[in-house]
């Protein structure tokens, strides 16, 4: 520390850059908020909340596959989620704990993304005045904000459709029945525009995952020549499994494979 200080004092500040080598000693903040105040720390948060959301998206897709086993199995699974850990905790408590975790993850993911975006905009206040010729930045990496926004809006609509029931089968032939998860899904997806919207939103999710799953390894510093090439394969595989699984549901309903 001392050596760094002496060296810094010997260096005159020059030019329009006003930063100094040694920042004035700040009061130590709480460890986690200190970490979150830096860009690298925010990227850890992006990665960790991303992993939580990956877990949810995967479990959600696998759970919904029970749709193919019929109404009884599907609704039984839905009830199982509410009765998770029931002798230990009262009904729906475990589910709500999971939900709070997810909500926190979503909010943190969005806040980190927003503040990093603001930081990045500031870092290039005057844009390039000629066209950029990007070499390796993928469509996915460059559209993370757009795909993320589409997924966020979709999730709100998805909750209104199948959890709260406020937009379920509006103008259709059915109505939302609390507890009849299977019937609600079928009645919702029988509306073609809704099915198309679900498919498009899931493709956006897949594009988001294609970059996100790879990117989180870099952000967390999980890099090793032995497995580095597998990070890309994992991202492609994970995104494909999620998209194929999720997109199959509205298609199955429209094709009559899943129906009442």
């Amino acid at each position, binding site marked *: *520390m001392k*050596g*760094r200080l002496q*060296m*810094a004092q010997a*260096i005159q500040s*020059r*030019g*329009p*850059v006003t*930063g*100094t*080598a*040694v*920042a004035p000693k700040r009061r130590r903040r709480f*460890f986690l908020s*200190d*970490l979150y105040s*830096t*860009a*690298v*720390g*925010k*990227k*850890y948060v992006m990665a960790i909340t991303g992993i939580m959301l990956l877990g949810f998206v995967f479990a959600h897709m696998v759970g919904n596959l029970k749709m193919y086993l019929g109404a009884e199995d599907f609704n039984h699974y839905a009830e199982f989620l509410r009765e998770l850990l029931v002798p230990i905790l009262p009904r729906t408590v475990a589910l709500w704990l999971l939900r709070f975790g997810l909500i926190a993850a979503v909010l943190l993911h969005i806040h980190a993304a927003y503040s*990093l975006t603001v*930081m*990045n905009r*500031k*870092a*290039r*206040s*005057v*844009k*390039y*005045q*000629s*066209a*950029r*010729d*990007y*070499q*390796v*930045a*993928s469509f996915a*990496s*460059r559209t*993370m904000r757009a795909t993320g926004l589409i997924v966020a809006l979709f999730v709100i609509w998805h909750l209104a459709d199948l959890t709260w029931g406020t937009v379920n089968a509006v103008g259709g032939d059915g109505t939302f029945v609390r507890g009849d998860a299977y019937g609600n899904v079928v009645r919702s997806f029988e509306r073609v525009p809704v099915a198309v919207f679900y498919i498009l939103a899931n493709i956006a999710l897949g594009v988001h995952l294609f*970059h996100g799953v*790879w*990117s989180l*390894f*870099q*952000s*967390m*510093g*999980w*890099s090793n*020549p032995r497995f*580095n090439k597998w990070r890309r394969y994992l991202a492609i595989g994970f995104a494909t499994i999620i998209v194929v699984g999720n997109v199959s549901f509205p298609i199955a309903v429209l094709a009559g494979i899943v129906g009442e």
Partner: protein
Amino acid sequence: MSNHLTNLTLKIWRQSGPNDKGAFESYPIASISDEASFLEMLDVLNEQLIDQGREAIVFDHDCREGICGTCSLMIDGQAHGPQRGTATCQLHMRKFQSGQEIVIEPWRATAFPIIKDLMVDRAAFDRIVEAGGFITAPTGGAPDANLIPIAKPVADASMDAAECIGCGACVAACPNGAANLFTSAKVSHLNLLPQGQAERWSRVEAMVETMDEHFGSCTNHGECEAACPKNISLDFIAMMNKDYRKAKFKNRKLIAQI
């Protein structure tokens, strides 16, 4: 026998000073040898401009052999032009075609203010290095070679990081204006070596936090690696991210200090 390229049009960013608005101006190059380097072509153009009594184009250059990191230029939307692993000074006109229009712009980043025309102030990089890109041990006379054994792969990895010439192409190419590739190269170069271990954790913390004051954040596009004239790997960014996290935990462990 060298061939000549003819009828080139250069669209070059002209800006009289830091506060000027600036604009592109077009300059014709009637004929230039394909053996000329890109900077030599600009020299030829400047000679012409001076002959005509016009102001020469200001651009950064020094060693012209790809090792000093002074040259820059955004050429047709790519930092250091279209050839991978090559600084602008080592880029030759044979990479271009007769009749082509070539757009030349300075690096764009808030931390790299334009001084004039194509020249930018990269002092923000100095701030990052000043924060920890050194070893404070009083070294005395030069030690004997091989006094400290270093495994060959470690020495190689450290050398790969030390190749960074600090030209700023990573920042220029990054859609976010982030300096993570530069900073990670400077961090990793020392953090890999035995001599760098004593200050490993304070170094990464200080350098990352200084970087934050000037630059954007890494979203893993990979453009920096593609633009780097020294082909520095993204793996160093991962290594820096890991070391930064470890540093945050380790420094907390320094108990019993007031």
